[in-house]
């Protein structure tokens, strides 16, 4: 079976690299499932999970807080804004982040503050949803 190289990086470090049979991601225009020899594609990602299926069928999932996805026929690059390893994500942290965002929203003064707060809220919600799914075992 054909495979492709996958790199998931965030500014804080390398998250994942290796060969994969399929990659799933939340594109801004909709859900994406990428197989080897996909047409070149460049898209923004929504906060959520990026799942990588290896050639042997095992799956890894990573949380990204948005970012950019580049697809070439044999190369997939995820430039994540904040990507944390799923197992490292701690639920309390997500709740705290959401709490912070909500608090910030409550005493937001300017438009940019509101925009930032909304953004944090969306990220926190996506993270919580991701964790819920991970707990149920069908990530």
């Amino acid at each position: 079976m054909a495979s492709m190289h996958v790199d998931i990086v965030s500014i804080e470090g390398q998250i994942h690299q290796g060969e994969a049979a399929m990659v799933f991601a939340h594109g801004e225009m909709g859900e994406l499932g990428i197989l080897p020899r996909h047409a070149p594609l460049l898209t923004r990602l929504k906060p959520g999970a990026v799942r990588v299926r290896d050639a042997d069928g095992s799956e890894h999932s990573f949380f990204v807080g948005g970012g950019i996805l580049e697809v070439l026929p044999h190369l997939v690059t995820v430039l994540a804004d904040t990507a944390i390893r799923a197992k490292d994500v701690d639920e309390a942290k997500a709740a705290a982040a959401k709490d912070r965002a909500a608090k910030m929203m409550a005493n937001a003064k300017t438009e940019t503050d509101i925009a930032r707060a909304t953004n944090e809220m969306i990220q926190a919600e996506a993270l919580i949803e991701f964790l819920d799914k991970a707990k149920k075992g069908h990530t």
Partner: protein
Amino acid sequence: MAGAKEIRTKIKSVKNIQKITRAMEKVAMSKMPKAQARMRAARPYAEKILRTISHLSQANPEYRHPFMASREVKRIAFIVVSTDRGMAGGLNTNLFRAVVRAIRDWKSKGVESEYAVIGNKAATFFKRVGGKVVAQVTHLGERPTVDQLLGTIKVVTDAYRAGEVDRVFLAYPQFVNTMTQRPSVRQLLPVEPLETAKLPTHWDYIYEPEAVDLLDTLLARYVESQVYQAVIETTASEQSARMVAMKASTDNAGKIIGGLQLAYNKARQANITKELAEIVGGAAAV
């Protein structure tokens, strides 16, 4: 024993200085590995985003982003990244020298420059020498985040977009290894793509959403990552340079103490001899 006493006070003060420099050396030594690890961790992102941009420059989009098109140079901007604190040997001085040289080169071609400064030392330097400082951010701490840098970056990229500056350079003390840090002044905008393996000649990405919007995000991220990389490389350079500089000062203080000790012993000996001579002289008189 007037002379000896003075020397003794001097020895004491040099010893105190030595204690401080030794402590600073140890602190820098313990902070260094973490700073270097952070620097290495950020490298893959910088490499990957440059790779994506290099691919992009070989594609044939109907739209060329201004960050990728070079134009006639009339005005330039420097983003100068320095440390917040001194006691790091010639790290900042060497950097400023390199920047000033670059500014002079451009000036001889009739190109004026403006500056965005990151780090306290660069801020005070440009305050002293003068020059148009358009943005500044200082006191980033040991763990700088991209968040802290966004404002400064935006000022510069907005100026570039508006055509106020035609080129942007990034200057920072590049980390070569623990013993060597080299001042680096390199072009940030327009982006100079890497030579990559040849891709088919006529192709383009599918862009989701619009290419304009997407390339904007991508290139903004690219600039952010480059500046962030420069900043954390500066912190790594800072700790290494400080460690080396403080080790040298500790050694120098040791040498000074040795010299002073010798002078002190001589003075003491001379004093004893003098006293003996006096006693002997006194006894002879009786």
